[in-house]
């Protein structure tokens, strides 16, 4: 009788069921919960920097240069007397915007081209994939350096450079997924029912190809952040006086020998914590989105 009569369960809206599942997972996986909390905190701080930051990020104070962290300046001040905490908070705006922006752009472009390659196969796929191979032949960081060096280092160009280096990852991933899913029986079933090509793509193939992409995007957020900081560190990213974690770390590095440790430690810590958080979230998302892992842990 298992086939016909199951006790009727209270109908649940799928979204609220998913949300509850996420919540249960987070309760059990406190490390991801902390990571998520850190990211949300940093995003809120960036969004409301004007209210949260104790000082103006670019306000110099000749009377308070190179101050050790204290109650006045929680994370100390730099050589111009600028408050380090305020600068880190304002820097989060640029850093997170570029990381999100670059990831989102790479995701959309990569998925669009990858889906086309997966759908048309043959010569279209061949041409697209050889272009991708030639992009991937460059080390990603060198390519990003070359692009910013060539275009000039504005926020927009840094974003573009990072996203360009990431497009191939999404493209390859989605293409492989589409190849796999288009041969599944439910894709055939969708064709037999009479779905037009666009519905097969957007309703039947893409949604099923997305979970690994979402995981990839989350992990790539950390990578984008790191690339940006590295670009700024070597002077090819965001230019001073605009505060940015990578360039702040670079400025601070000059003071290691003279003992002003807070100048490189705190911006560096911001980078490390954010990258780590994105990676942790990406890992637990991978577990979460795998249907076989449902109900485990």
């Amino acid at each position: 009788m298992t086939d016909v009569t199951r006790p009727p369960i209270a109908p649940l809206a799928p979204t609220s069921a998913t949300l509850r599942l996420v919540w249960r997972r987070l309760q059990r996986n406190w490390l991801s919960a902390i990571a998520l909390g850190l990211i949300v905190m940093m995003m809120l701080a960036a969004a409301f920097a004007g209210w949260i930051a104790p000082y103006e990020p670019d306000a110099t104070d000749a009377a308070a240069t190179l101050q050790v962290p204290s109650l006045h300046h929680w994370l100390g001040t730099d050589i111009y007397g600028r408050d380090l905490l305020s600068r880190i908070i304002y820097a989060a705006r640029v850093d997170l915007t570029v990381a999100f922006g670059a990831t989102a752009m790479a995701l959309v472009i990569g998925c669009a081209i990858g889906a086309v390659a997966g759908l048309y196969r043959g010569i279209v796929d061949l041409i697209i994939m050889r272009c991708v191979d030639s992009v991937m032949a460059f080390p990603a960081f060198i390519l990003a350096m070359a692009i910013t060096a060539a275009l000039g280092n504005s926020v927009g160009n840094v974003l573009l450079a990072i996203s360009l280096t990431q497009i191939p990852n999404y493209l390859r991933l989605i293409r492989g997924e589409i190849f796999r899913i288009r041969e599944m029986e439910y894709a055939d079933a969708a064709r037999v029912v009479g779905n037009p090509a666009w519905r097969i793509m957007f309703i039947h193939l893409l949604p099923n190809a997305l979970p690994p992409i979402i995981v990839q995007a989350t992990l790539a957020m950390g990578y984008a952040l790191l690339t940006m900081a590295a670009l700024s560190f070597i002077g090819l990213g965001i230019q001073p006086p605009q505060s940015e974690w990578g360039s702040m770390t670079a400025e601070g590095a000059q003071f290691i020998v003279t003992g002003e440790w807070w100048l490189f430690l705190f911006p560096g810590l911001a980078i490390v914590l954010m990258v780590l958080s994105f990676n942790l979230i990406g890992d637990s998302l991978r577990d979460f989105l795998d249907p076989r892992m449902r109900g485990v842990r």
Partner: protein
Amino acid sequence: MPPLCEVDDVKVHFALRGSAAWLRTLRDGKPPVVRAVDGVSIDIEAGSTLGLVGESGCGKSTVARALVRLVRPTAGHIRFEGAELTGLSDQDFNEVRPHLQMVFQDPAASLNPRLSVRRMVEEPLKLHSALGAAERKERGEAVLEEVGLGAELADRYPHELSGGQCQRVNIARALVTNPRLIVLDEPTSALDVSLRARVILLLEELRQSHGLSYLFISHDLATVRYLASRVAVMYLGVIVEEATTAELFDRPAHPYTRALLAAVPVPDPDAKRDPFVLSGEIPSPIDIPAGCRLRARCPFAQPVCAEPVPYREVAPGHFAACHLV
């Protein structure tokens, strides 16, 4: 009255690719081709069930896929309700789709895991009818009811359903547009035995109440015997025998059919059996032997079997392709 659906000498050939195929082209002077379906003609009468049996790899699923245009036939004609389907554009073929549906082999894999039962069952209506959302919902729930699924299952997702329930959803999806013909490609082979019987009973009940016709593809002879009014036996891309179910099971003419029937276990230790086995494996559909395709495996093979085989009527309504009957 012409049959509901005529499959007329349909061939589905696939070209082989890659370096091995290229080498064969050099050797044989022509590119190698998999002759999955190599000239199949069957008629499906309105309101009846045609069983199509054969071992795996004989091309029976490819016939089904050609019928619903998941593959294009290389040659031959398919007529449905008197209209030629083979030359139709994809757009025109879409007009036929609501009348010509298919149920696949793997019940769970043929449901999109991201769509609820409701959305899946209502999808054909969305594509082919002018019904509004409320009417679609009503019709969807009515069909689910008909296949034995309560409305409370409508909001579930495929991974929340059992195998039998999944197959009922598949049947409901095929049924929702009131089709004339449903192609059933081994609809029960992935289900366990107890569910198999229920699904078979459901299919028979639906056929009678809706005046449906089925092309029932299976390698399970017991279910074919129960459901089908006529049975066609397929071997290596061709039909080797076709007759009414009773005739075929009682007086099989072709050695291949006799071998298939002999392979069915009989729950009676004293039953007299046709002590009949074929030797060897089914040949590759790339290198099909000339003459009778069963020749190399048939215990009765004679020199004449190397000649082209006539497909003739051995008894009224009973056709077989064998030199020796």
